[in-house]
């Protein structure tokens, strides 16, 4: 290419020297570079593209793996939490004062009848210490439900009057209608009787 320049210079008049100078400086190297091999560029670009895709794939796969692991762990956490709550519930059931009292009573423990306090400062006992007894134990269980009448029929009582009159023993049925002891002295009270009844 450089060999053509002196030949041109001989033929073209000096007038065009400036334009010629410009042409000589710029056009030639550019054309040469445009025709350099595209292979390295393509290799770089495809490396980027393939690397990107592969990287994206790997990233996506690892995200998926993490998602599986997260789902698994979440499931495990839920199960453990449920287990913890069930155990807590069992614990609360065991701490039920009723359950403790039943166990204690079965072991022969009783509630003290009166509190007494030992003053550590003076070494004196305050209050009236009384030994705990098994008399009058605290009733822990509810009475069993009443049986239906079918299973618990009324006792059949036949009152046999003895030939001689022995006072007091036979009048078993007739006392039932009387009120509780100690209340018979109060007469029935209605709106227009003139009693305002006692209370104490």
């Amino acid at each position, binding site marked *: 290419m450089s060999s*053509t320049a002196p030949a041109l210079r001989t033929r073209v008049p000096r007038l065009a020297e400036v334009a010629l100078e410009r042409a000589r400086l710029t056009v030639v190297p550019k054309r040469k570079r445009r025709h350099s091999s595209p292979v390295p560029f393509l290799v770089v670009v495809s490396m980027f593209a393939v690397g990107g895709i592969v990287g994206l794939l790997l990233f996506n796969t690892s*995200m*998926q793996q*993490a*998602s*599986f692991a*997260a*789902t698994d762990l979440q499931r495990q956490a*839920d*199960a453990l*939490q*449920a*287990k913890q*709550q*069930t155990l*807590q*519930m069992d614990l*609360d*059931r065991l*701490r*039920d*004062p*009723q359950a403790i*009292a039943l166990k204690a009573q079965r072991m022969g423990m009783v*509630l*003290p*009848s*009166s*509190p*007494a*306090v030992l*003053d550590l400062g003076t070494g004196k006992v*305050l*209050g*009236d210490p*009384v030994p705990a007894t098994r008399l009058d134990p*605290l*009733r*822990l269980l*509810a*009475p069993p439900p009443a049986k239906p009448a079918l299973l618990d029929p009324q006792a059949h009582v036949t009152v046999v009057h003895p030939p001689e009159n022995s006072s007091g023993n036979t009048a078993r049925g007739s006392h039932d209608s009387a*009120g*509780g*002891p*100690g*209340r018979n*002295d*109060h007469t*029935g*009270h*209605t*709106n227009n009787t*003139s*009693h*305002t*009844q*006692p*209370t*104490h």
Partner: protein
Amino acid sequence: MPTTSPRGRSGRPTTRRNRRGRRTAAAARARRSLRGSAPLRLRVGFVFIALVLSFFGARLVQLQAVEPGKYATLAASTGGTVTVELPADRGPILDRNGRPLAESVAGRMVVADPLQTRNRAPELARFLAKRLHVDYFSTLHALDQKNSRFAYVARRVPADRAVSVVNAATDAGFKGLATRNDPVRSYPDHDVAANMVGFMGTDGPLAGLELSFNHQLEGRDGSETYEVGAGNRIPLGHSTVTPAHNGTALHTTIDEDLQWYTQRVLRQTVLASGGQSGFAVVMDTHSGELLSLADYPTYDASNPQASPRRDRNALSLTSPYEPGSVEKVLTLSGLIDAGKVTDRTRLLVPGQLQSGDRVIHDWFPHGTLRMTLAGVIAQSSNIGTAKSSRLFGHGQLRKYLTGFGLGQRTNIGLAGETAGLLPSQADWNGMTQDRIAFGQSVSVNGVQMAAAINTVANGGVRVSPSLIQGRATTNAGDVVGTDVATRHRVVSKNAAHQMTQMMERVVDPNVGVAPAAQVPGYVVAGKTGTAQRVGATCGCYNGQFTVSFAGFAPADNPRFTVYVVVQRPTNGGGGGSVAGPAFSKIMSFALRRYGVAPTGAKSSHLPTTW
């Protein structure tokens, strides 16, 4: 190719310059013919791009303007997104030491698809009956249904157990079982404080604190929507989360252990006396906190259906009754405060007292007695009280009773409370006043009366009772709790002191009517009540009684006020013999539990006669 062919065809070398010139011209011509001119290429490219973009635009308009929403629902229905409910935990109800009276546990319902379970139904029913403790026959029926794809097997099973049973069933080869979310409300103490705490139905709270503080306890469910693929959440998929807001715990002033003990003593007392019902209140004297509020009959909150409806009520609050002689404490405290009498005032108590067209009697027949005011309390004389109360000025007794809190709700946070009945000033005449003076013609609820007696214990200052620690807002919008407790002076400190001294005489074995209420080692002040009950049908006193005992200890520096009431005892016992021993046991337990040492003070020796 065009650059090499001329040389091959001619077979002779051309000059370097010519060859090159021809070659570039040919190449340019070939390129131009293939690609066309630059403006043409540009134009074609632009047209192509515009075509593609206009397709996009048309599609956009179709999706967004013509049929919006259609594709969203289509996508949702194909199962690409999942919406799960995030259930809020219901807040627990705690006692004063933070122990749960009611708590929520993650729960599951076990459901079946009968189409899949039918062929092995008996086998599966046996498996489930054994592992889930459900009824075999109803389970078999559920699993064996025809033409059904859904059946409940068990509800409100703790999640842990439900899941493990269903997994075990799947491992054993059974098909068609699944679990769904179904929270469990657990009441670990069963009947302890059940009348107050209430219980939950299938869909919501049905009674007690559960009901009246539901807004606070229930919280707000959240939800989460996300995309799934193959059972797993898509990592960068679209998702929206509305977080759940858990319910807030409700802190009560109840002491679980004391409540339990109170309930057991109360049950024993009611049963032993052949009574119909009863209640007991334990109150902290200075703070007004209710340490226990026991009702009998009661029920198991974890199995409320087992008890009749009437047993699930808090009768101590909802059922008004006439307090009887316990009320004399209020009358005479007011009278002392008004300066009309003192604890040593000497009275002549006749055998009967004319009141309008009626006659007032005492519980024991007597002639004219020479009693002091202390004797009137110690022997619980109706005549002595009514006669003294005639010293009150117009409207004075009513003002004192209102000050003690009668006729007004205590508003401790439970719904359905009765205000009791204090006759209005217009209905108030001499006869009414005579009867009200000793506790007839006035009705109260249990907590109201306990708070009134507690006023005397607290040196004449009424502190409003509380069931909630701190503060909480009921569904009705009332703010209740210890933070908003009110105090006001009802009677002077001196009047309260004199009344306390008089009440100490009640448990005196020689001059009082209730020696059984004594707590050995302590000075106890109290008052019995044996009131006639008003029958439900006749509107009159029907021969039944309400027996009660109210008191506080240690009398010289009170810590607790205990009030025990038994309705309709049938063993003939009165306040002193039925409620007195129960008071003694409960008070003794409370004093021991809170480490209250005896003060070493001596009981008063006020003269009761003259």
